[in-house]
């Protein structure tokens, strides 16, 4: 039952134009960032390849902030659709298990929320073949970097954000509250980042960043250009600790809902 509901949720969104518009917007943004210096996301690309594993992972770490509000729309809909469309009487007089239903909707929404993030890969992969790019700045395609970036950043970030927003949506049953919560997450993140700028607490700050952006920055701080061009960070050390921590926090929110 759980997976059938998840699958329904995914198919439901695959039919929507909103999802594909979001994906194209993100793809266009990162296409621009990768192929031109006029577009920058989180700082200029310095001396690495423009499609270096470092760049890919860095982009995937940051894209979560950009897609936060898009994810809010998907997650809200998953949590509140039966109330906003007045179908709750039919749905809730059915012999559904609450757990299957909510988790099914949730996992579907997480999967769908990741799709716009894949625009990062799409943008970078396409940019390589543009006639105006300087071929010397482009390395080989590291598929593993795309894969690891999705597994280490896109997936856990979305899970965390979705869990918080889903819990808020289920408990508050109000779309405005959900969007305020999303904005709260965003501003809370920026404030927390400012407060933990202190060098001595660098490791602590890196562990506590729910999006893993500072974790990534800290771990790669002393990487050489060659390392940045060829290494993709996987599940190990500080990053793994950070990811496990925030997935656990997300799971706690879900359990609460």
């Amino acid at each position, binding site marked *: *039952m759980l997976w*059938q509901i998840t699958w329904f949720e995914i*198919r439901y969104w695959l039919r929507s134009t909103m999802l594909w518009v979001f994906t194209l917007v993100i793809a266009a943004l990162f296409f621009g960032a990768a192929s031109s210096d006029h577009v920058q996301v989180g700082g200029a690309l310095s001396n690495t390849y423009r499609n270096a594993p470092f760049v890919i992972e860095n982009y995937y770490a940051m894209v979560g902030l950009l897609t936060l509000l898009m994810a809010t729309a998907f997650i809200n809909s998953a949590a509140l659709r039966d109330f906003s*469309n007045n179908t709750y009487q039919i749905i809730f007089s059915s*012999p559904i298990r609450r757990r299957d239903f909510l988790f099914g909707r949730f996992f579907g929404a997480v999967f769908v929320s990741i799709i716009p993030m894949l625009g990062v890969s799409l943008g970078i992969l396409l940019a390589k073949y543009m006639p105006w790019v300087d071929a010397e700045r482009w390395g080989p395609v590291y598929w593993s970097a795309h894969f690891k970036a999705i597994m280490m950043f896109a997936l856990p970030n979305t899970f965390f954000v979705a869990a918080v927003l889903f819990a808020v949506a289920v408990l508050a049953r109000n779309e405005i509250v959900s969007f305020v919560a999303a904005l709260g997450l965003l501003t809370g993140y920026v404030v927390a980042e400012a407060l933990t700028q202190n060098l001595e607490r660098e490791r602590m700050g890196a562990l506590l960043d729910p999006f893993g952006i500072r974790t990534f920055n800290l771990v790669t701080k002393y990487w050489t250009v060659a390392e940045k061009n060829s290494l993709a960070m996987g599940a190990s050390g500080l990053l793994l600790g950070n990811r496990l921590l925030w997935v656990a926090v997300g799971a706690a929110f879900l359990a609460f809902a």
Partner: protein
Amino acid sequence: MELKIENLSKTYANGTKALDNVSLSIPHGMYGLLGPNGAGKTTLMRTLATLQEPDAGTVRLGEIDVLKQKDEVRRLLGYLPQEFGVYPRISCQDMLSHLALLKGITRSGERKQVVEAMLQRCNLYDVRKKSLASFSGGTRQRFGIAQALISNPQLLIVDEPTAGLDPGERNRFYNLLAEIGEQVIVILSTHIVEDVMDLCSRMAIINLGRVLFEGHPEDAIKSLAGRVWQRSIPKSELAGYQQRYQVISSRLVGGRPFVHVLSADPLDAGFTPSTPNLEDVFFTKIRGWN
């Protein structure tokens, strides 16, 4: 199986007494629940459909305690709410299939068959690929009945199902209901007297949360035999008539008020005897006359 409602009461936070010590026993077949808007019908339906809790009372469906064993009830229940929406961007067939899944038809092969058969039965097969959101009132209501019937319910609750349907659609809808009503418990809530007259072998009249009558429609009509009188009067005299007589109803016929009056004694002065109908019963009960 029989549905037994005993001493059900519900008062809302704003003080509205929606159900006041309601007791009914509802056997197989079509059961009409007749009452004006705001009588407490929808509260009763929603309580039976496990969507809200009463303050007091019990409901049993056969051996099942409806108020406690909600999942067991839901497995046997088909419910067509008074108002319901649909998801945007989804076809009739996909939504019906999804609802069938939620109602427990988990094997996809079986679900496909059941959905297909139901689309045929509710005359939705030609529009199965169309978006639900684009459906007209009648077609949407047919979808509503399709989803209520999809899990082959033993208890079917339909709340004001014919509101907004044109006469042809209403007729088709009745035929569907009548067909099902032979085997299971069907509760039809409505404020339209003809709905009950045409379809139901048993009925209850409720108003302001109280049961005013329970029984067969014919018995209710018989109880008024010889006591209903009718005549056409000038508009200016209507107020006077309402003071002097127990006026059951007045409607305009050719621009002039045509009144039905309740009286045990024969009336003269232009009144003729009228054969009582269910509408007379309805208004008499609601006004608290006997």
